[in-house]
């Protein structure tokens, strides 16, 4: 048997072993529900674009949970015996899910970029996915959703009504849009999370 077909089959095997089609279907579902919910919330009487805040916080949280849990490997010990380097595959895996998810979620909240619109959505997705990736590397992929869910939940009620200031750093998911400090935190979280994941891989799990 020649090696050529095996090379062609490898990416497919990777995609199947990480259940990526299911993750993509989940992400699609999240985007569709987010688009509908954002539209519905804005249409309520006495509500404007700022009413989209639950969607802008919750949808990236769920998307990051889907991306984080997709990093789970059923045969981690076997994977580590492979000759090829893993880091390009891990990086590609993370980017291939983050970029389309960010694009689609940004399109789900059209208009008014300053009041919980597309920029806030992209920022929150980057930050949440970074935290999820870091959690996958440190806790394991199956529980990677936990830190961001607890943090996001606490910040959701704790954030002050006025944006900016110190809150732009610790309550970055709740900033309406252009706050630079929130962007800095989210991008740093993504960079650190991605680096941890790419270097270490998801932590092996048993229970």
């Amino acid at each position, binding site marked *: 048997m020649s090696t050529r077909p095996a090379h062609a089959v490898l990416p497919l095997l990777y995609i199947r072993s990480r*259940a990526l089609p299911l993750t993509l279907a*989940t992400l699609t579902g999240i985007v569709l529900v987010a688009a509908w919910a954002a539209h519905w*919330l804005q249409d*309520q009487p006495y509500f404007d674009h700022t009413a989209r805040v*639950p969607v802008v916080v*919750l949808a990236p*949280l*769920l998307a990051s*949970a*889907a991306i984080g*849990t997709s990093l*789970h490997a059923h045969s981690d010990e076997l994977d580590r015996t492979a000759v090829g380097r893993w880091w390009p595959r891990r990086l590609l895996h993370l980017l291939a899910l983050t970029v389309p998810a960010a694009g689609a979620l940004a399109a789900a909240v059209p208009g008014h970029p300053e009041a919980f619109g597309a920029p806030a959505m992209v920022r929150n997705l980057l930050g949440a996915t970074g935290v999820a990736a870091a959690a996958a590397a440190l806790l394991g992929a*199956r*529980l990677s*959703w*936990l830190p961001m*869910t*607890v943090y996001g*939940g*606490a910040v*959701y*009620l*704790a*954030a*002050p009504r006025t944006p900016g200031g110190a809150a732009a750093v610790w309550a970055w998911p709740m900033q309406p849009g252009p706050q630079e400090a929130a962007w800095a935190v989210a991008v740093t979280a993504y960079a650190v999370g991605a680096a941890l994941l790419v270097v270490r891989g998801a932590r092996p799990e*048993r*229970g």
Partner: protein
Amino acid sequence: MTASEAPAPRRTYTALRTELRRGIAPWAGLATALTLLVPLWSKAAQWQGGWGQTQDQLHAAAALLGGPLVAAAACWQGGREHRRRTAELLLSVPRSRPAQVMTAVTPIVLWAAAGYLLALAVVFAATAPYTGAGGPSLSVVVTDLGLLLSIGFVGFVVGRLVRWRLIAPVLAAVCYVLLGAPGYVESNARFLSPAEQYMLEGSVPVWWFAPVLLAWTGGIAATVLLAYTARRRLLAVVPLALAVTAGAVIVPTGDHLFRDDPAATRRVCSTPAPGTPQLCVAAPDAPVLPSASAALAGMFSRLEGVPGAPVRYVESTFDPKDDEAALAHVMRGWGITRNKLTDPRAYASETALSLTLRDCSNHSHRSRREGGKQVDLTDDAVRTWLADGDSTWDPEARPLVTRLEAMPDADRKAWLGRYLATRKSCMPTEVPAL
């Protein structure tokens, strides 16, 4: 044979004790406590000092954040046997399914309840030193605990049934939406959501509020649990009927699940020094009185000896009578923090405004036009002078303030007496000019 039967209950408790100490259960309790305490701590100014506000905030955090968190934790616990591939091993254990399920889920809900009670103890200890009349509502505490326990049981069964890696966070999100979404609708059906905001700063739940809400949330949980574990699954119809009955009571009752808080409708007045007017607020706000008196001392000294000056300043909800005036409206977190006014000058200014504000919306525009501008300027000048304000709203009123300041004391008192006699009048000709 008694000798072989005796160890059975002890074994049950041994398993429960081990489950209580190991695994994610203690972490779930810690996470619940922290998830409640962090948002409450950051909003302390909005609740410290008022039992109603404290319970409102704790209830919102417990239902909207604690509920989904406990559901996710219990769901994760439910999926444990599947993840560890011990589901088949468990089938070989000579214990009934209900007993197995209860042993696995009880630690999660007990720890969650402990986390909630810890948060409650901390928050109550932080608010108690600043509170006035009234007290915490046990009904709300019991229903919040009931929600956390119920949602834990449901989450566990979902985790057992659905073998999907993402089910725990998705369940948390679904619970959040299910609990929070009814808040967006106007209909009475929103009271079915245990996360509904209750406005406890002026009302208290009726005595049967807790039993009905517990029957609703507990009934749903018992239905799910029995349908999953019981040998005779039809038994689940009994709690389902109970839950439906409770729901049928809650929806038509709606707002009437609450009655006016007698403490909030009772007014408490300060004992004034001779020559100064009395201040009256709702009983729960009584600790604010010293700070309010200090803020208004300057205004009262300017009005001392003025004939017709209000003898009493009351909270605007008490509908001031002819010889009374309304106090500025402040709320915890907006104007008051731990019973101290955060901006006493603004408070004095707003109280002076309520004294000089004329409600002339019912009068024709014609009478407002004829000399109306002059009356507005006079009101503005009196308000600024009374509150010792720096600037008037309208620059044209500035000379009037100077004129008022320059008047001899006796003349000013006489003029203010005539002015206050017409403070409710909408006829510009009746209001004395400066």
